[in-house]
């Protein structure tokens, strides 16, 4: 390829990448933080996907703010003031304070028209088993403290059957409305009289922008200070707050890690080459890699995951290898740019092929986020590599300094013995590795936010969106009957304290079959005379009694599902997913699970047709476990492929020598993670992939260098290893457990790869000279 062509190719490629990046950013590419992107994809159950969306969608933009004080009035007035502050910030599209229950109560009242067929499931059982005792209990209740009061009058519902049917919908966590603000009584939790006012605020689109300093966090901090001054307590939760914190923390970490990495590179280059030119060239190589990686991944995926950005920073670590290798070669006496390329190209070419292969092997895994990382890294590396090969020979000048001589004392020991000794030292550590595949390790959140979230979840009895029972059937009636069949089992689990509460649409929308049975039960109450004698004992007026009897024994009116859905509480309505071509679906949610609840729920689901227990968080953790195993296999595969490629070009003996460097480095790294008891999950394996890629680079650069080039190649890998360790060692201090584990895995592996590459030099006089190669690309 001619120099003129290269001269025009590089700017063209970069301009193209730049245009693509700008277009993607302009069309609203967003940072993705949804952890479900880490789930394995493939033919996911459409019912499960729809169900999860239904449960979590309302929460995507919702934030909850609680102001607490010793009296409901104080809590309410604090919440009013907070609402003004939130409104003034302009970050929210909607702020709800007042919870007006009037329309809901009116909707419930309308259901009274069907009172004959509406019974609480437990009451239907009691009426079937022992109607006398049931009626006796209702009478006793009328003499209790202040009797029973509620939405309907005693004359309309003397036995309280309808009121008891409504009661799960009335269930709210001790909530009251004071001065137009929803108040939750937290006295039981705090062992003193204490109240929280609840504020719902929906975040506007603008608040989601990725930034190091999200306005939502600043607002939160201000609100905390304000609360401290006002002597009230403040609690916040909601996906947007967590996202804001996550994106701020990731941006900070990327900036810090990237910044320190750059500083290290700057210092090393200035010190080594005593000229700013190599520095600018290296920065160009890194920049090209980042630009290419960003543009390619956005082009392919349309968006970027947070995880991709953090791990994609590894591009820097590998791309400087290429730049250093070429630049260090310029320290050789009598160097010319074309000669330089001739010297390093065999090593560079092999290094690129093996690294891209190693990183692309991630894309084989059925995990969207990891596929992004693979594409980001591989494309970034290609861009950096092309920059080194096309651009650097045009701009590099022979250096003024000379490469220093490297001396390693163990040079005389045979390589095989070094490998065996290392293996012996590492083996126990490998057995001490303890895998933890927990999705929560991915989320870094400050303790205060996590505590707030737990507290609010407990106080408001929020439904967990990550696990539920999915019931499906061919039609609505079967769907309801299947839920009805499930209720006794759920009730038994509740009594055994496996769970605290459950909620199913069928609790307020009986099936037609159950409605028929309910109508029979209520008309039986009339025909047996039980209802009449009860009303007489109560002293209900003659007219009222006769009207009620007539109502309860009239030919029944069936309550259609559509009508019921219009009237019932939204907490039940949202569990009804409706029907599509394939099936009708509904959710049953469970709360307050005990330790052994999951197997029990799974067993319960297995007993019933069309019932499925879904645990999304569990599925993600399962996915992480599978992916960890898969990655190990992929890593081994990548190394085998690399060995095969190298064996074809260098011969088996040399190939094994080169490949033993990354293999040993990986073993050292794993052993140290094992010995130290650090976190081991799928993300450590990504660090191992990086070690594999970098280890092969180091070994090849040194191996492929001719005798004269050894010194400069040694310098190149020393500089590359130093900058990479400096940059990624900092990841160990990340707030996010998995990122910190990434750093802890990486540092020992990189150090080992560097030392081993220098030691693994072939005995004598075997170098690139044997490989026929032209510096043309």
């Amino acid at each position: 390829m001619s120099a003129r062509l290269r001269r025009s190719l590089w700017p063209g490629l970069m301009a193209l990448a730049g245009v693509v990046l700008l277009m993607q950013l302009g069309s609203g590419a967003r940072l993705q933080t949804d952890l479900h992107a880490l789930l394995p994809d493939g033919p996911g159950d459409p019912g499960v996907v729809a169900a999860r969306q239904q449960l979590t969608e309302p929460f995507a933009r919702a934030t909850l703010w609680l102001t607490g004080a010793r009296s409901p009035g104080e809590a309410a007035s604090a919440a009013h003031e907070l609402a003004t502050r939130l409104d003034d910030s302009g970050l929210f599209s909607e702020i709800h304070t007042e919870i007006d229950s009037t329309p809901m109560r009116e909707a419930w009242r309308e259901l009274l028209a069907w009172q004959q067929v509406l019974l609480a499931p437990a009451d239907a059982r009691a009426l079937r088993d022992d109607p006398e005792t049931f009626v006796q209990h209702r009478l006793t209740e009328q003499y209790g403290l202040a009797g029973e009061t509620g939405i309907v009058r005693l004359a309309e519902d003397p036995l309280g059957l309808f009121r008891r049917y409504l009661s799960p919908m009335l269930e709210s966590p001790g909530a009251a409305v004071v001065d137009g603000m929803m108040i939750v009584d937290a006295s039981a939790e705090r062992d003193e009289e204490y109240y929280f006012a609840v504020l719902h605020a929906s975040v506007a689109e603008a608040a989601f922008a990725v930034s190091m300093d999200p306005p939502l966090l600043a607002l939160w901090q201000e609100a905390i200070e304000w609360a401290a001054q006002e002597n009230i307590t403040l609690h916040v939760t909601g996906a947007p707050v967590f996202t804001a914190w996550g994106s701020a923390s990731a941006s900070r970490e990327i900036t810090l890690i990237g910044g320190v990495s750059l500083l290290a590179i700057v210092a090393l280059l200035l010190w080594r080459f005593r000229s700013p030119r190599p520095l600018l060239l290296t920065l160009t190589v890194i920049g090209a890699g980042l630009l290419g990686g960003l543009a390619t991944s956005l082009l392919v995926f349309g968006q970027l995951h947070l995880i991709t950005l953090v791990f994609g920073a590894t591009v820097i670590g590998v791309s400087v290898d290429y730049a250093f290798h070429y630049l260090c070669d310029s320290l050789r006496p009598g160097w010319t740019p074309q000669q330089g390329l001739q010297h390093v190209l065999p090593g560079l070419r092999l290094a690129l092929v093996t690294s891209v292969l190693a990183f692309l092997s991630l894309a084989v895994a059925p995990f969207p986020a990891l596929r992004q990382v693979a594409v980001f890294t591989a494309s970034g590396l290609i861009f950096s590599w092309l920059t080194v090969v096309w651009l650097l020979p045009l701009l590099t000048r022979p250096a003024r300094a000379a490469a220093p001589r490297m001396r390693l004392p163990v040079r005389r020991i045979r390589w095989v013995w070094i490998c065996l000794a290392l293996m012996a030292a590492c083996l126990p550590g490998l057995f001490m590795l303890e895998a933890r595949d927990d999705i929560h390790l991915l989320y870094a959140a400050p303790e205060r936010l996590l505590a707030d979230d737990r507290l609010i979840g407990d106080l408001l009895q929020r439904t967990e969106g990550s696990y539920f029972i999915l019931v499906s059937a061919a039609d609505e009636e079967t769907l309801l009957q299947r839920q009805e069949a499930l209720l006794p089992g759920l009730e038994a689990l509740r009594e055994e304290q496996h769970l605290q509460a459950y909620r199913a649409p069928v609790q307020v929308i009986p099936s037609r079959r159950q409605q028929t049975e309910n109508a029979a039960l209520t008309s039986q109450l009339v025909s047996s005379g039980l209802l009449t004698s009860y009303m007489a004992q109560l002293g209900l007026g003659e007219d009222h009694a006769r009207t009620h009897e007539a109502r309860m024994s009239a030919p029944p009116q069936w309550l259609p599902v559509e009508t019921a859905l219009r009237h019932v509480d939204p907490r039940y309505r949202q569990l009804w997913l409706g029907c599509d071509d394939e099936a009708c679906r509904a959710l049953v949610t469970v709360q307050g699970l005990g330790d052994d609840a999951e197997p029990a729920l799974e067993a319960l689901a297995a007993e019933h047709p069309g019932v499925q227990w879904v645990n999304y968080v569990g599925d993600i953790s399962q996915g992480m476990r599978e992916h960890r195993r898969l990655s190990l296999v992929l890593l081994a595969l990548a190394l085998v492929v690399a060995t095969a490629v190298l064996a074809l070009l260098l011969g088996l003996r040399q190939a094994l020598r080169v490949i033993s460097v990354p293999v040993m480095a990986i073993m050292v790294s794993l052993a140290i993670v094992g010995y130290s008891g650090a976190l081991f999950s799928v993300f450590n394996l990504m660090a191992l992939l990086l070690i594999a890629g970098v280890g092969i680079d180091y070994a090849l650069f040194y191996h492929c260098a001719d005798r004269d080039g050894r010194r400069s190649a040694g310098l190149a890998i020393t500089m590359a290893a130093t900058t990479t360790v400096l940059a990624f060692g900092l990841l160990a201090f990340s707030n996010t457990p998995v990122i910190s584990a990434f750093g802890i895995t990486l540092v020992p592996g990189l150090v080992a790869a560097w030392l081993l590459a220098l030691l693994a030099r072939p005995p004598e006089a075997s170098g690139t000279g044997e490989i026929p190669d032209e510096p043309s690309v």
Partner: protein
Amino acid sequence: MIRPGAALMLVVLWWPLASLAAGDTDIPLPELDAHDITRGEFTQIRQLPELTRPLRSSGRFVHDVDRGILWQVDEPAPSTLVITPGGLYRNGERQSGASPMTTLRPVFRALFSGDMARLQDHFEVTTKAVDVGWELELSPRDSSLADALASITLSGDAYPHKVMIKEGEGGRTELRFAAIEHPETLDEQTQQVFERVGKAAP
């Protein structure tokens, strides 16, 4: 026993002047003795427009400032109701659903533990002038309670005597207290009742 008496004397003496100056609302809240534990007997008469005769019941009650209220009906049929900060339990079983009755906890607290000021957290409190003793009218600040609980009237002198609960649609419940005493500790049996519902709470 002298302190509240004296306070009431002041109320009675100052009332005419106060009412001249600023109307009824300026009458200070009565000061009652503070007791951690109160025990007594009650009779309840509940009247509803749709009932031909009032529902009468009687029994015993215990108020513990920390634990809550135990309401034990003996006549005409035995039943127990426990109201704790954690919820409402009828015959040992937790009742789901918001109940206007939880609002009675601060009322009892005011009546038997002398914590009158805290009533204003939950109610708009109007002090009414009466010839003997005092009378307070409470209307709930929680708007969702309005149709179940229109107002509560409390009256008494040195002791609280009567609670009148007006329901939304013309119903009213009258509670009268008698044989009030203030033991130092709860008896074993009552303690157990509170502990049992404590365990039943989620």
